[in-house]
């Protein structure tokens, strides 16, 4: 190549050398592309966001492709409409794992791959529905409590100690519902004194409907996540049923005057668990991801998730959270010996696991919820 050509290349030279250099670099480029694994995730909003998965993505050359849902029924609906292998990792509300398994949507897991020995609470190792005939199908990764969520300028901490505060005359039109029947009706069931809020006979179910209906005049609206968030933030709603710190925690971090407590009648635990989708082509990487989420780093990311906070489920995870963010650990009671330690609350019998109705069909609860909304 002459010096003249190098200094002043014509258009043909640029094209020629451009094509040649692109062709030469293709093997490296394609190798780099080939190594990037795309993991399809089905989860509640937030689990596939950078604050949770960026480190894992960078360390393993993985790219997540999340599909978000709101509510276990919605999750089942989405997965049932997709061909097998569509989702590599599936985050499920614990009460729906059994149905995922029965429908054949998830693969069996090897218990030895996950740190069950390090779990904070023995019961979580054998979470209902996660095992069948000694086989593991899902691993609990985080949880949170639902109770009374309220604006601290309108409801006192003492009043918030009972679900009865929702009926406070000053809150007329200012009580909101997270628009999902299970947590709301579960709370009403707790208020009625049902020890197992989702396993109630017809008489108790009738009373739950009565109690819920009596709340209707107080209700200002039914909201999804965004609406609940905005309603509490702009003061349109002064108390919310069906939620907990997973929403007010985010607002509290922004300085809003809101809080959530587990009232004296008890609270409900939402539990989230990871499974590997049946037919996943990236099952090994999916397993690695679940292991990461149960590692101390993963547990910290999960507990501090920007979309909605949760509790760590492993001892190492809690320890790491206390080191990394002691303020958040204190705020959420994730400190050994704290009065509001989530594990202590369960042991005291104040927390019940959210479940699906045991003696009525889910459809029955849902139909009542629609009637309640329209009344």
């Amino acid at each position, binding site marked *: 190549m002459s010096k003249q050509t190098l200094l002043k290349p014509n258009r043909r030279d640029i094209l020629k050398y451009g094509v040649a250099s692109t062709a030469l670099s293709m093997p490296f480029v394609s190798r780099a592309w080939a190594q990037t694994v795309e993991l399809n995730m089905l989860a509640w909003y937030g689990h596939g966001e950078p604050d949770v998965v960026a480190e894992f993505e960078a360390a393993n050359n993985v790219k997540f492709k999340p599909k978000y849902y709101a509510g276990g029924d919605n999750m*089942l*609906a989405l997965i049932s409409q997709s061909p097998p292998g569509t989702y590599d990792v599936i985050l499920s509300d614990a009460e729906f794992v059994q149905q995922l398994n029965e429908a054949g949507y998830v693969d069996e897991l090897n218990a030895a791959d996950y740190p069950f020995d390090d779990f904070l609470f023995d019961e979580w190792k054998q979470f209902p529905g996660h095992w069948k005939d000694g086989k593991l199908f899902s691993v609990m990764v985080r949880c949170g409590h639902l109770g009374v969520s309220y604006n601290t300028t309108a409801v006192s901490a003492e009043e918030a100690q009972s679900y009865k505060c929702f009926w406070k005359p000053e809150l007329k039109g200012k009580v909101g519902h997270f628009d999902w029947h299970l947590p709301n009706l579960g709370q009403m069931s707790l208020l009625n004194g049902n020890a197992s809020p989702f396993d109630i006979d017809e008489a108790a179910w009738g009373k739950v409907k009565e109690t819920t209906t009596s709340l209707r005049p107080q209700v200002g*609206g039914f909201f999804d996540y965004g609406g609940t968030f905005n309603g509490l933030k702009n003061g*349109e709603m002064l108390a919310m049923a069906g939620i907990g710190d997973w929403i007010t925690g985010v607002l509290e971090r922004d300085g809003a005057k809101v809080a959530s407590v587990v009232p004296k009648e008890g609270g409900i635990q939402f539990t989230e668990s990871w499974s590997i989708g049946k037919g996943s082509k990236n099952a090994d990487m999916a397993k690695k991801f679940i292991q990461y989420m149960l590692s101390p780093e993963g547990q910290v990311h999960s507990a501090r998730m920007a979309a909605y906070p949760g509790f760590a489920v492993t001892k190492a995870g809690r320890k790491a959270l206390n080191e990394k963010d002691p303020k958040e650990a204190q705020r959420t009671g994730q400190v050994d010996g704290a009065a509001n330690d989530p594990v202590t609350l369960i042991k005291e019998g104040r927390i019940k696991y959210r479940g699906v109705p045991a003696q009525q069909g889910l459809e029955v609860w849902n139909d009542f919820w629609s009637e309640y909304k*329209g009344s």
Partner: protein
Amino acid sequence: MAEGQRRDFYAWFWRAPLLVWQLLFFVVPLAFMFVMSFWLVKNYRMTPAFAFDNWAKMLGWNIFWSSYAYTMALAVAATILASVLAFPAAYGLAFRVTDTTRRWALFFLIIPFFTSYLVRVYAWQVVLAGNGVISAMLGWVGLGPISLLNTPIGTLVGYLTLSFPLVVILQTISLASIDKTLIEAAHNMGCSPLRTVFSVIIPAAKVGLIVAGLFCFILSFGDFVSPYYLGGSKPPTLSIMIVDSTKSGQQWPRAAVIAVVMILSLLAIAFTAVKFAYRRRG
């Protein structure tokens, strides 16, 4: 090939894409939805069947009919409000401004469609809330604070956000197309301005005015965003009921029943409106 045959082939060649498109993306999905309304859901899975359970359940359910009445009432209210409020603006743009001003005005009326409807609705939340602008203004005159958020008024504001610019545009085009000599003749014969509007302009622009109102009705009747985010889903409209049905227990067949009823209602209203629009004065 004969000249006539060549012309037929040419016409069909250009018609075909539209027909194929409509067939594939309208008729087939619509037929599938209708078929699905007879299916059953067992253990969260849709099972093909020919059962009337979903129809019996939905049509025999009080909540469905109260939701239907509420949805219809809100859509009718939005249509009347939009048509009445848009008319003076459209009249002004059609008869009282220059062509250049009218073109600029129509351009500005299109601009709201450049932004997401959902974003505009979220912006309205700030305005309509108890601590929002409207409440503060009502407070100054001793009527507030009043929250319009999560009320039927909030929903109506959302419906008008969606349809009002379109209604103004359609009314303006319709009024601007009127033969101006008819108006001049009315004036020459001593007709008052108000009577000219009701006896000459509105009858002459009837088709356009009705079509504008019909668009508003269709958009409002099927809207999910405003009743959910500005009306607080309280009570739910039919579109919210569709979402609720699909969210809970994967009741797509019941959602299909609601959708079919909505489509039939819209077809009936659209045909009636168009028939009325083209009816000659007897």
